[in-house]
Every structure is written in C-alpha cells, then in structure tokens.
C-alpha cells in the first residue's frame, strides 16, 4: 500500500499554535487522501492532540489553514464536523452514560435523518420513519462491531472492550468521509487491539482515517503514511518502513520508548 496521489480530503498547512509563550505547533502541515490511513505520532507533548483540536475547530491556529475537500474551513465549530462528514473519537470513551448503547449510536446517526425541525417537534412527517431508519442503521453498526447483544444495555454495565466498540460504532455509523481517531487502543487488551487494527484497515477502504496512537505496532500495521511530530514540529514523514528506518525518529523516541501504549 502506498500513498495515493488523489486530491486530499483534509489538508492542514502551516499550522502554528501558541499558548501564551509556548509554541505548541510550529508550521505543521498534514494531508489525508481518501481511502488512506494516516498516522500521527510523536512523544508525549509533541502537539498531536493540539493538531487534532485545530482540525476539529476546538483550537484556532494563529497562522495556517485547514481545508476540507479544497475548501478552507474558517470558524468551524465541533458540531459542524458531523455535517461536513468528519467524525472524531475522543481520548476517553465519552459514551453517554444515561443512554443505552443503541441510543448512543443513534445520536451519532442523527445526521442521516431526513425530517426537519417541525417533524422533531410534532411527531408528524418523517418523525417515525427517521426513528426507524436511525435505529436500523445504529443496530447495523453495532452488529458490524460485534456489539449487537449490548444494544439495550447501559454503557456502564458493559466491559471496557465492548464500550470501545460502541464508541467506534457511534463514530462511523453516519458513514463519515474522514475519521479522526484519538488513541483508540488505549486501555485495550492485545486481542482487542488486533481486532481494532482490522477494523481501522477496513475503515481505510471506505473513508480517510487520521490516527493518533502511541501503540507503535498498531500504527506500523495499519497506516499508509505516517507524520512524526516532536516539540510541535514535523520531524519526519513517510511510509511505515521509512519511518522505522529514520534515525531522527529513533532519536526523538529515545527515552520515550517506555511510554508506548500509555495514555498521552
């Protein structure tokens, strides 16, 4: 698998973010093409999550621009992402504890509904057909991740691995074109990580994926292209093989190797 040359879905160029006197990101660029999995790695504090937050519209960069399908994103807010076709998972599980697993996924499916505000308020029009459509799609997503048995359960009663799958189902149920995964492997067992890798590769066939992850085996396994950040700067980019052979990357990780697989 090599990087495709088609126009990128998501492109970030010259992103610079300063928090007070601290430069979190300095002239960072990144592109995700359709159907590829791009990994974003780097030691703790390298600026990976900040870059994610810039893409999500949570943090505004001092310089640089994020563009989506060639159109520059300005003033976008997190809740606009879903309508653009971008889904993001958070570092934690962030499931809604008061909603059943199925309802959790149905929240993610909401943008597939066709009814308007009037239908939502009155029960007329597409209200019922929307409910049915969302429920079916959510159920299908849960089945895809092998969590269909958990549909009626509350998240708190489910094992951690199943909760992770519900969270993934919620992120991809609306068929986003780009999936931002923030440390999806944290807290998972080896077996679950293998299954996760399989899932991420299958997402890659349907959508672009941007993956922040500490678990190097997973990153090397699933990514088509890797961007390495250190102290807010891009120090290397390339295929997994190139990155593994890069002495600069090895040096950046020297002493940080202990932290692999831990929370960022």
């Amino acid at each position, binding site marked *: 698998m090599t990087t495709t040359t088609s126009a990128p879905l998501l492109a970030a160029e010259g992103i610079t973010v300063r928090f007070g006197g601290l430069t979190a990101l300095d002239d960072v660029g990144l592109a995700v093409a359709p159907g590829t999995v791009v990994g974003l790695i780097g030691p703790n504090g390298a600026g990976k999550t900040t870059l994610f937050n810039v893409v*999500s519209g949570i943090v505004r960069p001092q310089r640089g621009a994020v563009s989506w399908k060639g159109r520059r994103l300005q003033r976008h*807010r*997190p*809740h606009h*992402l*879903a*309508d653009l076709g971008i*889904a*993001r998972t*958070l570092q934690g599980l*962030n*499931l*809604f*504890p*008061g*909603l059943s697993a199925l*309802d*959790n996924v*149905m*929240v*993610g499916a*909401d*943008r597939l*509904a066709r*009814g308007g505000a009037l239908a*939502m*308020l*009155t*029960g*007329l029009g597409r*209200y*019922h057909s*929307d*409910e049915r459509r*969302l429920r079916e799609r959510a159920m299908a997503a849960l089945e*895809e*991740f*092998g*969590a*269909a*048995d*958990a*549909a*009626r*359960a509350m998240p708190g*009663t*489910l*094992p951690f*691995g*199943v909760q992770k*799958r519900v969270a993934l189902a*919620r992120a991809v149920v*609306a068929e986003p074109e780009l999936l931002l995964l923030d440390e999806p492997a944290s807290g998972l067992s080896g*077996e*679950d990580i293998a*299954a996760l890798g*399989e*899932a991420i590769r*299958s997402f890659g066939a349907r959508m672009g994926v941007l993956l922040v992850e500490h678990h190097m085996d997973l990153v090397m396994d699933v990514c088509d292209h890797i961007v390495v950040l250190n102290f807010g700067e891009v120090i290397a980019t390339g295929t997994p093989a190139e990155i593994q052979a890069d002495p600069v990357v090895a040096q950046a990780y020297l002493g940080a190797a202990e932290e692999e697989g831990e929370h960022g």
Partner: protein
Amino acid sequence: MVSLRNHESTGQGEQPRRASAPSAADRWRALPALVRFPLAAAAAFAAVLALTFVTGPTGDLRIGSVGYYMLAIAGLQLLIGYSGQISLGHGAFMFLGAYTMALLVLHQPALPLWLNMLITVVLSCAAGVLVGAATARLHGPYLAGATLALAVGLPSVTVRFPELLGGSNGLAFSTRGAPPALAGVITNTQWQAAAVWLTTLIGLVVLATISAGRLGRRMRALRDDESAAGLAGVPVGRTKVIAFVISAGAGGLAGACQAYLLGTATPSSFTVTLSLSLLAALVLGGLGSMWGAFFGAVALVYVEVWGEDLAHALSLDSNVANNLPIVFFGVLLILVILVWPQGLHGMLRSLAGLVRRGR
C-alpha cells in the same frame, strides 16, 4: 464489512435479545409516537372525566390542579431531566401564563378559551427565547441563580403596574362554564377540570413526542457529555435554548390553566416557593421520565390535602396545621430519595420488577 472476532458476552442485567414472540408492551412501543401518545392521552382523559363524576366540586378543583402542575413539572422535566439545565425560576413562566390568561379574559372576553391558551403558549415561548438565549452560556449553578432571580423579581411587576395588573390583590375574573347544551350532564367545575386536563394532555403528548424522538435524544446526549455530543453533530447551544423555550411554553400554559381554574391571578401564588416546589415535586416524582411529572404533581396536590385533613382530624393549632403539609412533603421527599434515588417513578419500576421476578 468488518466483523470483529472475539464477541464478548455483554454483561448481565439485560434481557436475551429477540424473545420468541414480541410481547404486548413491545408491540405498543413499536407504534409511531403520533399514534401511541394520543391514544394514551385519550385513555387518560376518559379516566379523569370518569373520575370527576364521583368527586364533588372540591375534588374537581384538586384534579384540575394535578393537571396543570403536571404540565408545569413535565416541562421542567424536559429542561432538567432531559437537557440537564437547572431552572429554579419556572414559577415565573407560570406567572406570565396566568396573567396573560387573566388579561385576555378581562379585556378580550369574546376570544374562545383555546385561542387564549394558544396565545399564552406563544407569549411564554417568546419569553423563553429571550431568557434562554440570555442564559444559554450559563451552566449549572449560574443558570439556576439567573432563573431564581427571575422568579423572585417578576411577580413584583404587578405592584409596579397596579392599574393594569391589579397590584398585590391580583386580577379576578369569571370564565364561562359548561356550555348550556351540557347543563344537566356535567357541572361547571367538571367542565373546568376537563378543560384543564385536555390542555395538559395535549401539552404532554407534545412533550412526550419530543422527548422520545431525535430532539430528546440530542438533549440527553448533551446532558451526559457536551463535547461528545458536539462531535456527534448535536448543535449544543441551540438544543439547550430549544429545551428552555419548550419548557417555558409548558410552564406558561400551566399558569394559564391555573388562572382559568381558579378565576384569579395573584402575585402571591407565584412566589419562589412555587418554583422550588415544582423542582422538589420533579425530583420526588423521578427525573428522566415523563411519568415522574405525574407522580410529582399528585404528590404536590394531595400531600397538602392529606396534611390539612390530618391537622383537622387531630384539631391542631393553626400554626401547626399550616406547616404540616410542608413537613409532610419534606419528609416524603427525603425518605423516597434515600431509598429510591430515581423518585416515585423509580420506586414503582423496581416494585414492578420485583413482582415480575416473583411470578
């Protein structure tokens, strides 16, 4: 499509998926909201109407009171139980509704009751937009404080405009009772209680439809985790304001029903105590389910009634008698919440679960 290999068991406490045949309850739940909730409301209306044939005028008044309190508490349920915003000032919207109703009856006597109700809903929703937009950026205790200030401040408007709003004595008016055609069939108080309940039930159908659908799910999602809800596409700020507006509309309509039932609108009925009582009744009835509003309203009206009856029966001093209902309500609230944090609705659910398992 992907299939993940290791399908884990998903913990206990849930029923096996797909029982052989869908039960009656499942089939009922599968009905469209547009069918299910109006049917339930029609049944409830028939039951209430039947009940008024065995109660006297005082009983009718109490039944009507349960109705409008239920509507106000159900609106609060949508705001607090679903969208997770705490309002300590919902009495202000009841105040607004009651005075709108009184002014309409006094100054536009030709307007039919249903139109008065409709005007009240529109006005209270408009007030809800104003307050909701102003408070949308406030969280938790700050929102509670802002709404509390509204409940404290608003009733004193009556003293500021005594000619229009009747000062501290409020406004008194009389409404048309039962239509002449029904003169021998039902009494005026029965008619009034029925009108209040019809309004309440229509309001509840709307609230139940909203809370069972996409909007309700969005509210519950942002209540549980705002950032995750935002990333899932829920417009967080707008959804909060919508919840506030809807609950303001329900509060205003409840106030209009109260004014219509009692024939008065006085500032002393809409003190902070009312707002706090609504909140207490909501918690007692149970957060997170529209049934909680029903149990809360029944408790709010009848605990007071029983407290007064008990004080009478024991021929207590009036100082004690006046405070007994409040003590009752407080003790009941503490006991229920200690044993069933989900309120009376949670209590009945767990009892029903025990009975089912016992069989």
